[in-house]
């Protein structure tokens, strides 16, 4: 059951009603039942796996608390984290192999069993929980119901965000103090998320699919346009599903962490990664980068670069066992290392040249955006070979098929003018709302306008979503 399906809307409405009629521990029970019911609609066997892993983590966390020997604790922690990582690697690789060798590239029931949906998200949540318990950042969760709800919480299991255990359990304890305002905010987030996905991302997805399927057949201009479009598509798609997840969570009294903060306005690459997929990057910063940086501190800048590279490659391969993801991570590691090593010097240099500092305010985000567009071309390609093909064909004159550099054929790109216009206007509106939502004055203005004006805006969004809906589109990040 997808977030985009009508039956999910019915499931959500009935679930929210059941949740609000329940009280105390029953609310948590309702949430757990809803979460497992949602997961079962994807794959019953995967639900058993999730339950099994949760039970194991419950006992491991209990043992971590009881053990008195620091050495034994460490061994148990390393062992359990290693098992979770191996599970992740095993299922990801087995899924890939089955897809490649058994089904000739197409997915089927077998590959679904081998690569359970949401695995990367819930394993990272549980690993974080064990590390937090070991570092005594949070107490052990003795209530199995609460622990079982943490990895399985249905708004977040498909595409995140990766919420920290302490934050989740804290909010779980306050479930009975649900505010009606949260429900309204949640519904608004869901609507906005659907708009991003259906009106913006899906209108350009056909074009992105077309250029990546056959880079040979497109002009450099069309490929450049496709590269920009993929950056906008993945942002609208992923931030859309995050909005929906946060919105649904709010209906059930749980506020998930934000995943995006206007990433395409970032002034440098470090800032970009503090604004993009924030729940994953902050997780990796806390549980991988910081420990690595600490243990490599005696190597100075070389240690810093090594920690950055390992972390960024982990960001890449978290998406799956593909060379393109690893190269995407390594490329971002290179960007980050260069940026981190030169940042102080650049700041000093620009401080002495105030006029150029103004240029930097515009050039910084533009350069960062284009570096990410380039990296995302590699991320989107199925193989390194097709990524190389795409990149070389971007350069005018290297197109072997003799296609003119400035050709722009909408028919070949599987897109219509109205769809492009809608996506462009939708993207501009989306970024404006993202920006305005962070400004208190604009939020106050929005709440001060008459109710019918706000409702008219919501109806327009609903009509645009209904008229743009396509049956077969799924969220990009649901596959990870």
């Amino acid at each position: 059951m997808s977030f985009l399906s009508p039956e999910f809307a019915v499931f959500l409405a009935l679930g929210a009603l059941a949740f609000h009629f329940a009280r105390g521990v029953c609310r948590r029970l309702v949430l757990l039942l809803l979460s497992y019911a949602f997961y079962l609609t994807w794959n019953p066997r995967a639900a058993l796996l999730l339950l099994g892993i949760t039970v194991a983590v419950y006992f491991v966390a209990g043992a971590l608390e009881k053990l008195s020997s620091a050495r034994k604790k460490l061994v148990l922690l390393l062992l359990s984290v290693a098992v979770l990582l191996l599970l992740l690697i095993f299922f990801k690789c087995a899924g890939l192999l089955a897809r490649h060798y058994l089904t000739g590239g197409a997915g089927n029931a077998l590959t679904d069993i081998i690569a359970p949906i949401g695995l990367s998200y819930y394993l990272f949540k549980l690993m974080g929980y064990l590390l937090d318990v070991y570092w005594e950042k949070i107490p052990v969760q003795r209530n199995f119901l609460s622990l079982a709800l943490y990895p399985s919480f249905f708004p977040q299991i498909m595409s995140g965000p990766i919420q920290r255990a302490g934050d989740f359990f804290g909010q779980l304890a306050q479930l009975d103090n649900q505010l009606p305002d949260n429900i309204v905010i949640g519904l608004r987030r869901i609507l906005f998320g659907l708009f991003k996905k259906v009106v913006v991302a899906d209108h350009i997805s056909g074009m992105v699919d077309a250029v990546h399927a056959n880079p040979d057949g497109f002009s450099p201009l069309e490929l450049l346009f496709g590269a920009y479009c993929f950056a906008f598509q993945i942002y609208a798609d992923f931030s859309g599903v995050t909005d929906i997840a946060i919105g649904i969570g709010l209906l059930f009294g749980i506020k998930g962490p934000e995943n995006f903060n206007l990433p395409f306005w970032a002034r440098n690459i470090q800032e970009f990664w503090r604004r993009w997929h924030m729940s994953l990057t902050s997780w990796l910063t806390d549980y991988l980068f910081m420990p690595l940086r600490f243990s490599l501190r005696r190597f100075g800048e070389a240690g810093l670069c090594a920690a950055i590279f390992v972390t960024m490659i982990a960001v890449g391969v978290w998406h799956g066992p593909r060379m393109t993801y690893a190269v995407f991570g390594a490329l971002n590691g290179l960007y980050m290392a260069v940026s981190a090593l030169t940042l102080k010097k650049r700041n000093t240099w620009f401080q002495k040249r105030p006029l150029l500092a103004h240029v930097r305010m515009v050039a910084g985000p533009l350069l960062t955006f284009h570096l990410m567009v380039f990296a995302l071309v590699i991320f989107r390609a199925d193989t390194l070979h097709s990524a190389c093909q795409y990149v070389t064909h971007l350069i005018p004159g290297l197109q072997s098929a003799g296609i003119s550099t400035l050709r722009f054929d909408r028919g070949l790109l599987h897109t219509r003018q109205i769809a492009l216009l809608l996506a462009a206007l939708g993207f501009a509106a989306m970024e404006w709302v993202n920006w305005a939502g962070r400004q208190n004055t604009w939020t106050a203005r929005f709440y001060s306008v008459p109710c019918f004006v706000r409702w008219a805006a919501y109806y327009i969004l609903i009509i645009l979503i209904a008229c743009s809906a396509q049956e077969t589109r799924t969220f990009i990040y649901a596959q990870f």
Partner: protein
Amino acid sequence: MIRLVRRLLLFCLPLLLVWAALEYRARQVPNSYSIKRRQVESLANDIDTLIIGSSSGYYGIVPKRLSGVAYNLADAGETLYYNDALAAKVVPMLPKLKRVVVQIQYISLYMSVEDGPEPWRMYYYQQEWAIPPVRLKDRLDARVFSRVALNGPAGIGKSLAGLIHSQPYVPDPIDDRGWWGPANEEIDPAAIGPAGAKATLDRHHQYMIPALEARNIAYLEHTASLLRDRRIELVFVTLPVWRTYSDGMNKDSWARTQTVVDELCKKYNARYLSYLTSPNFGAEDFKDADHLNPQGAVKFTELLDAALAHPGTNRP
């Protein structure tokens, strides 16, 4: 909280009204299922021969060229589950029914709508014929209940535009006996050539699932026993395909299908008329590698009518 619920209901009310209006308008738009249902209901007291099957039968058998009053209930993508369910629904409605022609093709034993290329069809069977999807999860799908959800925004737009311009939206040219027969259809040589046939076979092989065999045989048995109990003659028919298609068929699968049908014929005293590689048909009789065109359909139906008239005819 009560104030919030009231406001939510008030907000949703216009949306629900618009939805209801769209749902009503969408259900007025005819489709091949609704057209055939209405035609069968209006001809119920006259029909003596009923044809069920998939696209090959839908395109390839012209009821008006058969003796008596025949009706072609076959439809594109129809599998044995729906053949059987439709027979169970329709046969009791037809007091004069003497014969049922069940079309069997290469893929019959190995296909299901839900795992096939056009799963949306199962929701039309539910909405028009009250035949539920096989899987429980499909029975809970919104498209079981809502035509708006089934058509999607594009379909609704098209349908409404058709209604506004007072032009009924008819997806297929269906005559009053359920046959698909466009007046002038251009012949596309590529469709029956080796590449066209290979593309069709590749698509068919992609959706043929050996594990479905037992289930599909059970549906055939159920149809056969229903007809035997009502003393209605059962005739299995395989329509011709062009040689580019038959050459690429998996011989074992086809042999297995024929064995199954022969066994059913013995068990239920039925007949099997297979014209798969009949030499009577040339390239000019096909619309593509596995479907007859209108000219071929007329030629085939005349052969079939002659064979049906002779009770002893089996495997011509």
